[in-house]
Structures are given as C-alpha cells and as structure tokens.
C-alpha cells in the first residue's frame, strides 16, 4: 500500500472520511434492502422474503406511479436538455453581460427545492394564483392545478425551470471546449449557422449531451421534493411518481417494508442509469483526450 510520496499515511488520513461516507450511504442502503424483506404486523417485524416485491409488482397503483414517473421523466429530460442547450448556445455566442445572465439563470438552482415548490403552488392557486389568474381565460376559467394533465404540466414546468441552469452549465462547458478554428474554417467554406450546428457543434457535443441527459434522467427518476411541495402527488394520483409513493408508504402509512421494496426497485433503476452515465463519461473523457 506504499506510494512514493507518503507510504500509508494518505490512506490513513482519508480513512475517517471514508468510514463516515460508508456509514451514511452503505449502511442505510443495506438496511433498506433488509427492511424490504420484512413486514411489521401488530408491532412485530417478520421476515417475509420477496413478498413485498410480489405485492408491488401485482399492485395496479405501482404501475400507475411508474407510468407517471416515465411520462414526467421523459418530458423533464427532453425540455431541460433542449432549453439548456439553447441557452448555452446563446451564451457561447459572445453576448455582452454573459456573467449577469448566468447569475440570473443560476438563481433557481441555488434556491431550496421545497421553497420554490411552495411558490409555484401559490402561483397556480385556484383563486388567488397570479399565473392562474393570467391564464384562466385560455382554459375556460378552470384551475390548472386541479386537473391531472394540468398538474403534471405544472410540476414538469417547475422542475425544468429549476434544473435548466445546471444542465446549461454542463453544456456550456462542453461548448467551450470546441476549438474556434473549426467553426472559422467552416464559415470560410460557406457554412451557415444551421450547418455549423448540424455538422460541427452537435456531433462534437454529443458525448457531453448524453452525459447531461443521463444526469438529468437520474434526477428525474428520483424527483420528490418539488412534486411533493407543489401537488403532493395529486390531484388523485396524477403526479404520484414512484418517489412519492415510497414516501407515502413509509411516512404516512408506516409500511416500511413495502416502502423499502420500492426504494430497492429505484436503486436498481438508478444503478443501471449510473452505469450508462459512467460509460458516457468515460467516452467523453476519451474523446476530450
């Protein structure tokens, strides 16, 4: 374990932090897996094996939540990456006051998820909501947040609004690694803006775009805070993503085994996505080198 500069000392110095990280990540994960194999009845915890998973997989509510999660995540990723890409392109084109724009765009990211969710909820309050009042004539005075499609649209809009800045940052960093000379050479050869984007920017940005998209996808799958504070999963189950279903099972129904089983399913999904993310990241590093 010796290295050239300091023997085992670097490892020993890192050890306390590593133990702490393992304690707050690995232990809860292992405990969740254990919990997913148990069930509490009448105050007694009993080992039930894969029974919780059987119940989840035979529960129509699980598939409804899964459907909502997939719809939400699809539009969340698509809109976040698309809008962030557009903003990154504009900021990369040499606008004045870029720093000011970036600060303004980054504000939603640094605000608390729950606070911004509550504000979005207020903006769409059926009678007093400022945005609801503005758009009410367009929707026959129906309160959008009280309708399944409307509520889902609002949570998508809110989460996209919050995540654009971070995605934009990743994409802007990628754009700034593209050498100017390539674009200049293409312009000399007569390429217009669209051609530049199609034949130079897009192909060179593809790895970065994939990395950004997978990162945002992981965020979308696990998204709970904003949705909880805007709609709490309602109306009905219209915005009840898997994360909220898990939260409800644990914190409202005290059905910890069932909730832990949902968390294990989410863990598996996240591990698959993380593998894609790391693979995309490796590919991007190779291309950059």
């Amino acid at each position, binding site marked *: 374990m010796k290295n050239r500069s*300091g023997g085992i*000392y670097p490892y*020993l*110095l890192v050890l*306390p932090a590593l*133990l*702490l990280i393992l304690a707050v990540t690995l232990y809860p994960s292992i405990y969740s897996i254990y919990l997913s194999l148990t069930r*509490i*009845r*009448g*105050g*007694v*915890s009993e080992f039930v094996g894969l029974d919780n998973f059987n*119940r989840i997989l*035979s*529960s*129509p*509510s699980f598939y409804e939540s899964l459907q909502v999660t997939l719809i939400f995540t699809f539009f969340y990723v698509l809109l976040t990456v698309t809008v962030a890409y557009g903003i990154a392109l504009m900021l990369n084109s040499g606008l004045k006051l870029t720093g000011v724009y970036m600060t303004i765009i980054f504000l939603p990211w640094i605000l608390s998820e729950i606070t911004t969710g509550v504000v979005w909820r207020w903006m769409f*309050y*059926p*009678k007093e909501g400022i945005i609801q009042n503005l758009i009410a004539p367009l929707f026959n005075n129906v*309160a959008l*947040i*009280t*309708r*399944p499609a409307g509520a889902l649209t609002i949570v998508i809009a809110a989460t996209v609004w919050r995540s654009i800045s971070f995605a934009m940052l990743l994409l802007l960093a990628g754009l700034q690694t593209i050498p100017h000379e390539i674009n200049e050479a293409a312009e000399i050869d007569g390429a217009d803006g669209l051609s530049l984007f199609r034949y130079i920017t897009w192909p060179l940005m593809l790895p970065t775009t994939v990395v950004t998209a997978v990162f945002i996808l992981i965020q979308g799958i696990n998204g709970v805070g904003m949705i909880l504070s805007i709609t*709490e*999963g*309602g*109306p*009905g*189950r219209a915005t*009840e993503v898997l994360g909220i279903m898990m939260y*409800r*099972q*644990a*914190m*409202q*129904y*005290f*059905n*910890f085994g*069932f909730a832990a089983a949902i968390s294990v399913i989410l863990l598996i999904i996240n591990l698959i996505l993380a593998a894609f993310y790391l693979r995309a990241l490796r590919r991007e590093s190779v291309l950059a080198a």
Partner: protein
Amino acid sequence: MSQVKFLRWFVLVVLLSLLIAACQPQTVIQTVEVPKEVVKTVEVEKQVTKEVQVEVPAQPGNLRMWGFYDLTDTGDSRAVQMKQMIDAFQSTTGIKVEYEQVAWDQMATKVAVAAQAGGDLPDLIMVGAEYMQGLVNAGALLEISEPIKNSFFYADINPFEKQLNEKGGKRYGVGTFISGGQWYYDTEFFPNGMPSTEEGWLEACKTLAPQGKYVATFFAGRHPAAMAQGLAPLIWSLDSTLFTEKGEPNFATDAMVKALTFWRKLLADKCIPEISFTGDWSAAEGPFIEKTAGAVRGGTWSYIFIPGLQERYEGGTVKIGNPPALSGAKQGFVFMNADNWAITARAENVDNAVKFINFFFTPSILAPWASSNFGVPATVSALNNPMFADQFYKDSLDNLTRNGHPSETSPYYNESMDALSAKVQELMLNPNMDIMSEMTKLQNELINQYFK
C-alpha cells in the same frame, strides 16, 4: 522530514480522536431506583461509631413527553394551559417533565419512524385517535388497559370515549376530549333550518345555483380525514360501513355508489364548489366565510379554524344543522374523534406517565383543557363544569348525542382512507368513470396489499 512526519501523525491522531468522540453513545436518561432505607455509618463521638437507619425517599424520576403545542407561545391558550399543567404537575409530584413540541400532523410519523428505527422515543405522546391503529400496528404504543381501568376516572369516562378507544377489550390511549363533525349553516340562506336530506339539498340548489351561490361547502379532497368526516357519515346513513369487522376495506357497496353519485350531482349542478374536491381544508371553507355558501361542514373545533364563525354563532346568524342523509336513510350522522394521551412501547417511565394521565384527568384540569379546544371533556365530572353551560357546548353536545357516530377503525385505516380519498377525487374529476368497478379494483388492491 521528521517534523513533517510528526505533523502527519499529530493530524491523524486528532482526526481519529474526533471520530471516536463522535461515535460515543448518547447519554440515556434512566430512572434510578434508590432504596427507601439505607444504613448509614455516622460518627457521633470520636471513638464511638453508631449505625443509624435513615429513610431516604425514592427519587421521583423524569417524564419525557411530546406534545402539539409550543409552550413559549403565549398567544395560544392551549399552549399556555399545557405549560401551567406541566408546572403544576412538577411541583406537586417532584417529577421532572421534559417536553418537546411536535406538530400534530407529524407526531404519528415521528413516533412510528422512531419505533421502527430504534430511535429515541418519549414516554408519553399526544396523538389523534385516527392515528392510533396505525401506531399500534407499527408497534409504537404500549397497551394501557389495566392502568386506565384501575384509575380513579375510569368509571367517569363518557361512553363516546370508550367506543373510540376500547377495541376488543384493549386500550392503547385515553381520550381527553371528544370532538366531532358539525354542520354550520347561515340563517340568511336557510331561515327555516338547513336541509338534511338529499332531496332537500337538490331543491335548495335550484334556488341558490342561479344566483352563483352554493348550498354548502366542505373539504372532500385528498386526505384521509376528509373521507372520515365527509363520506363516512353518508355511508353510515344507509346502515353500511367503510370497513368490515376484520378491518378490511368495504368500499365496493351500493351505499358508496349512492353517496358518490350524490356528490357528482351536487358538483355538476354547482350546488357545491369544485374547490371542495380540489382545494385544501382552508380553501374549501372559503365560500362559507365569504357568504357564498349556505353551510359548511366543520367540527366542534371550528371556532379555532374558521374566521368569524364564533362571532356569527354568538350573534345568532349561524347555527348547527342536522347532517345530510342520503335518500332512503333514517338519519344523518357526524363522525366523532378524540385527542389522546398514549404511552409509547419503549417508555422508560411508565409509572410517571400514568401519574401524569391521572393528574390530567382531574376535573378542574380536564375541563379548561377541553374548553380551550372547544371539545367535550371525556369525563362526566369535567362536563359538569359551568364553562360548558355555554350555548355552543349545549348545541354541540346535543349534536354529538343525536348524530354522533364513532370513527371506524382498521389496522390499515390511514392507508385505506388515503387511497379512498385519491380514488374519490379521481371519480369526481372524471364523471364518466364507473364508481362500482373503480371501487372494486381499489378494494381488491388494498386487501391484497395489506390483508393477505
């Protein structure tokens, strides 16, 4: 080089020490038993020692308690009373009370999670009766049938409280006051009394709806309590129940179809505002406050939560009406509930917790407590206090006596009622969905998930 080496080791030792210090177990407060008599050696004279028996009283110990109220909030009469009671209990018994505030809607979650995760639990908690079954199922509460049956106030407890808290001869909590649903109506809308039949409501709607007004407003959105307060009484009016005797959901019934069809009709004809299903508790009460709805479903607690209600009631422009009954029903009902004290399963000071409960149930203490919550005290002696001679209490007691129905229970009450509320909201917003088939699917899903 040796200096660098020394510095490295020094930093390492400091970090490891901090880590070890952080991992030290928390100090646990324990009740220490001190023998009542000790033999003490006392030197009386220089060369003579005498053995003297000295009686040392047992240490009174502590009591850890979680309650709903912030004891520093002097603007909340319930918090002020709670603080006074705790101070009086401490000075009377010598027992040191450690009180922590936990919001009413977080109490059950915090207790259940602590019970499950082996975390820190107090001795005594305040908890709404609707959460009791879930907490019992989570193994969070201690059975207290014997200490309560042996208490001085057991014979004095009113039958409502026993219906709510004694199931199968077992008891896990004791109610301090009974609260229940109440329909308040505006006499300007209904000078001859609020309609209490399905037909009466629809008839009144024909006059009010064209004026842009509603017969009534009530919260029936996504919340278990919305179903307990609003839907359950309609089901009971047709001699049906929401749960079987085993506690399994009983949602796919003709009574359910009739009740939801009635609500759909009210919504479609604008007899009730849409916000009843899509808003929250406060929003749903708005139309009554703004005098665009003739009645509101509230409870004995509504003086606290509906602005202006107390003034209107005392001014005679608002009265308590009879609850609605579906067509063919004998009568309408209102639900009844209680705020309980319960002892947790890992309580370390059970005796002290029982002492506090007994202290709390002294009539001179229980009466003002119930009064500040606008509830009916759980014991007859406390109810005889002159503060309940007020017209509001007389009307409330009359309402609960005639129309009160204890909430149903089930080991999975909370999750079943929450799922029901989500389904009802869906059915109201999608009038083309078939009620019976949706309720059948929901019922089967819940039974498969929780009872098999």
